[in-house]
């Protein structure tokens, strides 16, 4: 799928406040967001700051989406557990999956194995994106965030976006 198409699906689902920290897997997507007049994108200094920004935007009435690499997920655990999950503040987290199936640079391998288990540990729902399920997964994220009012993660391995 092209980054343009992916962004259109997110916008059509109602996500209207974007923030995050780049990863090469979503490099083009973030470049598009930077230029898109429809949707604000705030480049965050760190992943948990992005989660905080998204939480504030939600309180102000927005439907936020946070973009990050899975290496930043550990950084977010305190924000997710002691802010989002207890106040019931939803966000869509699009988390690129470095270290997917053990194939990557050494710094990504441990988190590549652990990232979905971390989500299980803290009780945060997630799905793995593939070329076939993007639209359905984005739809699922909207249903989950509005029903349960907690963040959900979509893990994005390399190759789903062109």
């Amino acid at each position, binding site marked *: 799928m092209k980054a343009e198409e992916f962004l259109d699906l997110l916008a059509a689902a109602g996500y209207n*406040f974007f923030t995050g920290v780049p990863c090469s897997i979503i490099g083009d997507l973030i470049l598009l967001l930077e230029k898109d007049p429809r949707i604000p994108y*705030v480049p965050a200094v760190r992943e948990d700051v992005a989660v905080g920004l998204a939480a504030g*935007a*939600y309180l102000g009435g927005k439907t936020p989406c946070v973009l990050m690499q899975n290496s930043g997920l550990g950084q977010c655990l*305190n924000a997710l*557990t002691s*802010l989002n999950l207890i106040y019931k503040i939803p966000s869509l987290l699009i988390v690129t999956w470095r270290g997917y199936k053990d194939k990557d640079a050494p710094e990504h391998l441990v988190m590549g194995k652990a990232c979905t288990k971390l989500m299980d540990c803290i009780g945060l729902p997630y799905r793995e994106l593939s070329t076939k399920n993007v639209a359905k997964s984005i739809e699922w994220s909207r249903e989950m965030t509005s029903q349960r009012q907690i963040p959900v993660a979509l893990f994005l391995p390399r190759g789903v976006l062109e």
Partner: protein
Amino acid sequence: MKTTAVLKTIMGTLREELVVAANGRVSREAFTLKDRPQNFYMIGSMGLASSIALGLALARPQRKVVILDGDGNVLMNLGGLPQIGELLPPNLVHIVIDNETYGSTGSQATISRKIPLEKIAQASGYPVVEKVTEEKDFKLTLERCLEKEGPSFLLVKVEAEEGPEGLPRVNHSPVVIRDRFMEAIRRS
């Protein structure tokens, strides 16, 4: 200056402003002095009061948003300052009550006893930066920061005191804090 006196002046001066209060003493004092739906008490996620408030200020540009922060919180997320300085939301007022200690855990030192937070704010791009060390100057400086086009940064140096054990904890559940805060935003 004492923390309680400073927060009493702040809570007595605020009108319709939305407040994001940092965890620990700041939230407990604000709750005790003047509990109001426009207060978002951040009970966890230390460091993130400024980020939550920034997201809110961007989502609600017509509303004044006040951060009640502490030195420990600011130091934990120093990147939060240039994050605000780069975007320059005019409706944001960042008040830092600096007692140079982690007050809630037994007054262990923070590094703000040597590191001037107001200079970091200045370098981070806040167009208005004030530092107050005397109680007599506080109210006027606060009013100036609330009126001016921001973002403004107001550092208030206070005495380190005994921990907040005597202060009640915020007794609303997090979901109740969220619901009444969002309701207060919607109503306005």
